[in-house]
């Protein structure tokens, strides 16, 4: 009973600290001082560092999706809709979620382990001794880099997925390339593009806040660092999936879709 109460207290305290970090991270983007160099470094790590893996995964996901849909739709004589279904799936759902999951696995884990090791090595304390706010120096550049780079990576990933799907539709499923691209053009309407564009900003913010929070609350040496990194990735995955559902529901409602 006592352990249960203690756990609940810790959970409430953790949530309160996470909320404060997220809020201060957001406010830090518009309050001085700004650490431009750190922000650019983080953007380079998060953006160009993740590009290759995003390209590779997006290409194969696009191809697999196109293959699956072509096979299923050809059984009911609707193979010509492959482009349309692939387009909607990638732009609105799979592209943002997949890129965010890869981003959380690569960049989020990196943020958590780097900050965790800085905490355990007293580097964060050293910053505070020198009068530097770790929130401004460490957290804000990471949030900013995730919020900027994840949408960019998502757009690139979506484009590559659509090319992968095109390759399968045309060269394996023997569909018309022109018709495929005209189907994609049809789905590139305001509602779909907006739905697919808002999500990466939210996902990026969540991943960076969760990873920074986990990293800064690291304790317990090498095992603690392992636990911190794992927790950051797992919680980020859950946050992506849950917020994706909530965002989808809200966006469908706002954009006037009926379910």
């Amino acid at each position, binding site marked *: 009973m006592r352990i249960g109460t203690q756990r609940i207290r810790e959970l409430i305290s953790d949530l309160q600290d996470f909320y404060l970090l997220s809020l201060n991270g957001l406010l830090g983007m518009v309050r001085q001082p700004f650490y431009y160099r750190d922000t650019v470094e983080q953007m380079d790590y998060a953006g160009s560092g993740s590009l290759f893996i995003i390209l590779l995964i997006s290409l194969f996901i696009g191809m697999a999706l196109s293959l699956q849909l072509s096979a299923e739709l050809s059984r009911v004589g609707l193979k010509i809709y492959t482009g349309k279904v692939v387009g909607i799936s990638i732009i609105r759902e799979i592209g943002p979620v997949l890129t965010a999951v890869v981003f959380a696995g690569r960049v989020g884990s990196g943020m958590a382990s780097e900050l965790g090791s800085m905490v355990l090595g007293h580097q964060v304390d*050293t910053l*505070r*001794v*020198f009068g530097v706010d770790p929130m401004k120096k460490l957290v804000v550049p990471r949030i900013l880099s995730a919020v900027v780079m994840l949408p960019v990576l998502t757009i690139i990933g979506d484009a590559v997925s659509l090319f992968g799907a095109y390759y399968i539709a045309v060269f394996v499923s023997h569909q018309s390339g022109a018709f495929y691209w005209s189907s994609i053009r049809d789905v590139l309407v305001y509602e779909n593009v907006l739905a697919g564009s808002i999500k990466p900003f939210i996902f990026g913010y969540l991943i960076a806040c969760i990873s920074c929070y986990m990293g800064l609350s690291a304790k317990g040496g090498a095992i603690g660092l392992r636990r911190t990194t794992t927790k950051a990735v797992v919680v980020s995955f859950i946050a992506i999936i849950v917020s994706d559902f909530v965002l989808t529901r809200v966006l469908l409602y706002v954009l006037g879709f009926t379910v």
Partner: protein
Amino acid sequence: MIEFDRVSFSYGPRPVLKEISFSIAENERVAILGGSGDGKTTILKLVLGLLRPDSGRILIDGEEITQKAEDELRDIRIRFSIVFQEGALFDSLSVKENVAFPLREYTRMKEEEIDQKVRELLRRVGLEEAIALMPEELSGGMHRRVAIMRSMAAFEPRMFLYDEPTSGLDPVSADVICRLVLHLSQKGTGFIIVTHKVFDAFKLAERFMFLKAGTIVFDGDKGKMLHSTIPEIEIFLRELNFTPYH
């Protein structure tokens, strides 16, 4: 300069310090000894306001710091120079950038002046040639020397705080660090050294405090400590006349 008045601190449910009280003058050379997890480093962090006590008061120059906000503590922190365990150099910055860090934060020096100052500081500890190296390329002793110079780069501290400055070092490197610590206190600047190495503590300090299970069980000079009958202190003192197990 430093006064602890019935200070208690705990990490979650685990109490670390239990109502400890002591005061340390500015020019004193104090060694805080004790086993791992007995709260030695916690005391240094409390002095700088990096941690807040659960209860009790901490006074620096008569000014209570326990309720101060982070930006108000800046003025308190610049009175001290702290060297954390293993140096705590920033991994992503070179030796030069590490030493220049407080200069950039606290001063408005030009780039050439910063470069000159960094070289001068590194020359004092024989590390000018390591200026371009990254922390991972330094030995443990070099790490500590760079960290000591970084801690005093921007201002003259009124007191040094050393957290296990010789732990994990070979005897030669440890001796170099001890000499440096003594050299820096020649002008009468006091220090608090937290260590579990009695040999080094005896070389450096004149007052010794021993922590056990969150309380100060001993506070006195070398002579008094050598005659202490506290079992833990006796175990620590065995380091001085080490005899191998058979």
